[in-house]
């Protein structure tokens, strides 16, 4: 539990490695000499179907209390965001925008899905009700979809709808502000490189809540303590994968050693780009970014802020040495101010 303090590693604060910047072996820096490989999540939102199995599995496995049942009107998202009792959150975004430059055959050299659809007997120009029985999974075209001849993109670009879904989770940052600012040491770095709250230590000071650049960790109002995703620390300890990844039916949530996930993610982006989905980009996988890279990173199909993620988060403790220096100067100024106030003998 030496992580977050300025000693305990063979580097100094001046190097910046402990507070920000790349950190290749985060568990070792935290004081685990023989740590296992760092693990994390790669969430490939391009295959997320918004089933919320991850949310349910997380709630069930971790015995998280119910935290409000309300209909928001935000597409299918009634969960709203991460918090003390929501450790997985599926975002739903409806956009009048085609899903990349889709054309029949693109990226699928052997299969023409539209030809295959015609073979089923469904004529795109007249899919009248009851005309044919659609194949499994085929419903009527949505209201906004182009009728008649299937065209990849309408000229004005507004004739297609895409529905983005993304399962958000704690990022388990390389430089975790929540952990750094925790005054009790309740938040700690595990041997797997993840960040976990010790619920028997947390005294509910709430400092981690505004420290998190992603808005992940939060207090439970009735309980007072801070809670967040543990990356199923209890399951990792016995060699199991986290509940959400286990429950994900499309492998949108992939769990594994971080190095391997990064390779897999890079290959997936290349694949999507080749298929014409030029929107695909990775978020949070870069060890050079403001938090030293996330333990849980994402493949997104739009800008991060569209999903409610900060575009370029920076761990606040990067500036902490400067903050202490300024505070020390200010304290000295205050003392000097007092001395000056007494300098002249007056009544």
């Amino acid at each position, binding site marked *: 539990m030496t992580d977050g*303090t300025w000693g305990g590693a063979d580097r100094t604060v001046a190097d910046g490695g402990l*507070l920000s910047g790349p950190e290749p072996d985060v568990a070792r820096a935290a004081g685990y000499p023989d740590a296992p490989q760092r693990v994390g999540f790669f969430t490939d939102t391009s295959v997320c179907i918004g089933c919320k199995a991850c949310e349910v599995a997380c709630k069930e496995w971790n015995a998280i209390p119910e935290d409000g049942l309300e*209909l928001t*009107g*935000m597409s299918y998202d009634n969960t709203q965001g991460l918090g003390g009792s929501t450790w997985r959150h599926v975002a739903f975004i*409806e*956009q*009048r*925008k085609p899903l990349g430059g889709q054309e029949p055959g693109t990226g699928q050299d052997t299969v023409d899905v539209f030809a295959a659809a015609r073979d089923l007997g469904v004529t795109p120009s007249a899919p009248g009700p009851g005309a044919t029985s659609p194949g499994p999974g085929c419903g009527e075209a*949505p*209201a906004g979809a182009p009728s008649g001849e299937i065209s990849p993109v309408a000229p004005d670009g507004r004739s297609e*709808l895409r529905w983005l879904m993304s399962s958000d989770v704690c990022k388990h940052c390389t430089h975790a*502000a929540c952990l*750094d*600012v925790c*005054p*009790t*040491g309740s938040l700690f770095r595990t041997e797997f490189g993840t960040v976990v709250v010790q619920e028997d*230590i*947390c*005294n*509910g*000071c709430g400092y981690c*809540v*505004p*420290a*998190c650049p*992603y*808005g992940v*960790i*939060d207090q439970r109002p009735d*309980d*007072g*303590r801070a809670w967040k995703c543990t990356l199923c620390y209890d399951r990792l300890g016995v060699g199991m994968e986290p509940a959400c990844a286990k429950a994900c039916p499309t492998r949108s949530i992939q769990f594994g050693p971080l190095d391997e996930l990064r390779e897999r993610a890079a290959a997936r982006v290349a694949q999507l780009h080749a298929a014409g989905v030029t929107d695909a*980009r990775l978020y949070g996988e*870069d060890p050079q*970014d403001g938090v030293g890279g996330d333990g849980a990173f994402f493949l997104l199909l739009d800008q991060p*802020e569209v*999903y*409610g993620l*900060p*575009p*370029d988060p920076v761990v*606040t*403790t990067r*500036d902490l040495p*400067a903050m*202490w220096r*300024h*505070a*020390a*100067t*200010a*304290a000295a100024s*205050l003392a000097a*101010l*007092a001395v000056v*106030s*007494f300098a002249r003998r*007056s009544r």
Partner: protein
Amino acid sequence: MRGPDVSRAGAGGARPGRDATTGEHAGRRRRGRGERAMVPEAEFSSYYGRPILNRPRWKPLDIAGYLYLGGLAGASSLLAAGAHVTDRPALARTAKLGAAGAISLSLAALVHDLGRPARFVNMLRVFKPTSPMNIGSWLLAAYAPLTVVAAATDAAGRYRLTGAAATASAAVLGPAVATYTAVLLSDTAVPSWHEGYREMPFVFAGSAATAAAGLALACTPPGRSGPARRMAVLGAALELGAFRVMKRRMGQAAEPFAEGRPQTLVRASEILTAGGAALAGYAGGRGRAPAAVAGTALLAGSAALRFGVFHAGVVSAEDPRYTVVPQRERLDARSRSGDPGPEGPRS
């Protein structure tokens, strides 16, 4: 499938404010009348206008009060030591009692704000320079008993040597107690707190000086409060000057100071502090009434400043624009300059 056309709001699919027209410009515009934009209105995307950060769960009265009372106590200890050394018993008595009373209340507010107050001592189970709250707890653990000893020996008129040592030690720690609270706020992801990390310690130092001077002016016979009057003027100059510089350097994150409740508080603080200091400087030594009015104004002005800063931070955390826009601008600038920073090569 008629889903897209029917919603709780009725048929037609019109859901004002719920349409995630992402990729276009979905940013809210929240601008009252008669406000001038400090930076041009920027357009940005967000997830249904929801905040990125989780808002601080701190109770305003507890934590803003804690910041205020800590400052009042810290600077009072300086006044106490100065008065002790220069043999001004009336001023010393006021300042010593003020420091002990303020820091006791401040500690009570801190403990009251905890989600689990019974676990307050967990703050002292580690020593952690990356956590300003941990450092603050250690500071208070050392400082508060010193102020109590200083006040008690002064009131009892016995153990003068112990009292002198406690007074001197409290004066050494006092400036740190008064300024570390700026680091406490700055070391978060809250834009209007973090972006002010360079100047906020000086603002708080000045504000602490005016509060302590105000207390001394209000409670000491006017003829004996010369140093307090000078401290009021110097402190007000430091506070108002540093605050001005801070707002100028914060860029967009300064906007919350110019709207709604933070604006009211900050403006009240500026008027009370400037007016109180002017009155203290001109007429503070000429009668009980002007001194009492000036002292009360200074005390109120310092409190209003802390509450204003606190609420401005909450406003900036609750509006995604303050998180998204600066980060997006940073990213765009980086990609323009060709620096392969995060996202650069991929998006």
